[in-house]
């Protein structure tokens, strides 16, 4: 590499968000990342750029990225970029990074982002953090975050308040620990970010009008792409909308003795509460329910009005995915289950006995209204 020197950290400026589109529609994760990226860019006084790769993406979609925080949008248009391919996207994104040298690149941890991110990081010779759930540059803000979210004794810790590295925090070891990752020697600092974690800021009409959209010429030929797309199918079965759900009734390992009955009870309870059924990783991994129901680290992050945890022990990775729910109700046989530590209301008991009683009681209350 002649001019592009990934160790010359001072040569890199600006925060970038890879804004994923499918079928020409910008995905909501992009708005979440721009909102978060805006705060990071403000902390160090740099520009926030959204990068869109696609074909015929409408101008108003590109402008809208400004409304969620972008100062500038790089748009790269080519028929070869209409649908995602690893080779096409990685080449175009890496070439742009080498040309413009951003100090931070954020990518949504979707099935596409988790394919693109590592390919690019390896090519750009830099580190990549997977599935971050919290980002900080400012050390003061990071220390505040630790005060709230860790059991560390901060009085014994020293911090460098001049530090300008991106501190990327993620669940580790199956979610039993949290780890903050830094990439001090190489640039850009890259992270994929879990969908649903970062809050989308309010749309700013004036900012959308001001955003600079730059069309960047694309140097890409069909020969650059080693994989041929034969077909793209949207799943016919309706995916469970956990993220938008008002009430979620989730099942865990506690249903193992009779998974079918356990799930049927959860469905019935979700039915009377007007909600949907979620699940812990253990239940999904055991094949008792499909993975679109999964709440937690590799699943979804949810904040419903009511979250009912049935037979879920409460591993950190699951808790990380649901702790911001407004009211958490836990039913577990084991009175020492960690889930009771985050629940507003807990019942120690066998879910196969408790849930039918709950359903009957709720129906009675509803009938009386």
């Amino acid at each position, binding site marked *: 590499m002649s001019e592009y020197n990934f160790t010359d950290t001072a040569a890199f400026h600006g925060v970038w968000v890879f804004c994923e589109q*499918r079928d020409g529609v910008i995905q909501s994760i992009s708005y979440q990342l721009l909102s978060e990226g805006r705060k990071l860019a403000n902390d160090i006084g740099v520009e926030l750029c959204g990068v869109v790769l696609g074909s015929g993406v409408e101008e108003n979609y590109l402008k809208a990225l400004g409304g969620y925080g972008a100062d500038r949008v790089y748009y790269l248009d080519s028929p070869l970029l209409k649908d995602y391919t*690893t*080779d096409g996207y*990685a080449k175009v994104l890496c070439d742009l990074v080498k040309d413009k040298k951003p100090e931070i690149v954020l990518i949504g941890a*979707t*099935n596409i982002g*988790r*394919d693109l991110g*590592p*390919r690019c*990081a*390896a*090519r750009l*010779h*830099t*580190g*990549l953090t*997977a599935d971050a759930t919290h980002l900080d540059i400012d050390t003061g803000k990071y220390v505040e975050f*630790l005060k709230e*979210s*860790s*059991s*560390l004794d901060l009085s014994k810790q020293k911090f460098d308040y001049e530090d300008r590295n991106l501190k990327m925090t993620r669940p580790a070891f*199956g*979610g*039993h*620990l*949290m*780890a*903050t*990752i*830094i*990439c001090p020697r190489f640039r850009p600092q890259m992270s994929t970010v879990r969908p649903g974690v970062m809050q989308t800021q309010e749309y700013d009409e004036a900012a959308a009008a001001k955003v600079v959209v730059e069309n960047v010429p694309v140097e890409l030929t069909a020969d650059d792409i*080693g*994989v*041929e*797309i*034969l*077909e*793209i199918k949207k*799943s016919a079965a309706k995916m469970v909308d956990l993220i938008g759900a008002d009430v979620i009734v989730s099942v865990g390992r506690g249903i193992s003795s009779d998974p079918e009955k356990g799930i049927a009870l959860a469905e019935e309870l979700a039915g009377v*509460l007007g909600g949907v059924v979620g699940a812990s*990783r253990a239940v999904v991994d055991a*094949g008792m329910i499909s*993975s679109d129901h999964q709440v937690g680290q590799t699943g979804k992050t949810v904040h419903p*009005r009511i979250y009912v945890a049935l037979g879920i022990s409460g*591993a*950190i990775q699951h808790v990380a995915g649901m702790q911001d729910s407004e*009211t*958490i*109700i836990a039913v577990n046989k084991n009175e020492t289950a960690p889930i*009771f*530590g*985050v629940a*507003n*209301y*807990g*019942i120690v008991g066998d879910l196969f006995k408790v849930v039918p*009683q*709950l359903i009957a009681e709720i129906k009675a209350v509803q009938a009386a209204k």
Partner: protein
Amino acid sequence: MKAIVCVKQVPDTSGKVAVKPDGTLDRASMATITNPDDLSALEAALELKEQTGCEVVVVSMGPFTAEGMLRECIARGADRAVLISGREFGGSDTFATSQIIAAGINKIGVGPEDVVFCGRQAIDGDTAQVGPQIAEKLHLPQVTYVAGIKKEGDSLICKRMLEDGYMTLKVKTPCLLTCIKELNTPRYMSVSGIFECYSKPLEIFDYPALKDDPLIETDTIGLKGSPTNVFKSFTPPQKGAGTMVESASALVGILNDKHLI
């Protein structure tokens, strides 16, 4: 033709997880298993072997104790194994790990018909990064989240899962695939496999064996060389416990009072 399968020995994070007072994982006290997605990768390779008669080589990077896991892979049907092991490799992040494994695969040799199989992600790190990073280092096309594979001439037709559906992709060999558990049901070890697993070859690639490979940069491997470092690790604070309720009817009463139902 070869199928090269990357496997990892991981602590069983679905069981009891022990955390030391300094906030790191107490690996010594935890049981180890073969990473579940990697078993799907191995199964896919064994199915390819049944169709084509190809050789199946399993590769792992880890401590010497990972030999047992590699012997189990042989007992499931793999032909030979390579263990990449060296003090210099310890503490590597995904970038560093992928260089080392890519160098190991280079040493095994990737022929024009060969396929490298990985699991989508390991349950201890959950990054899903090492597969694509190996593919980049080896200049192989990649398909991730693979839930279906059909061989057609010199190509593979793969079903790649998306959150809202799937893509069908055609990729020419040599290539790298990362497999998810929906792809297949991994077979068990066979009795004859268990009987023979210690008579099949298992090679060790240590630091001296790999350090001269052009894919390895000796200053970006191991704990010190890795681009990313752990700045802090911690456990979340215990929240104040909520209200324990005696019965379903008491709970429904509270929910009703608070207008939650």
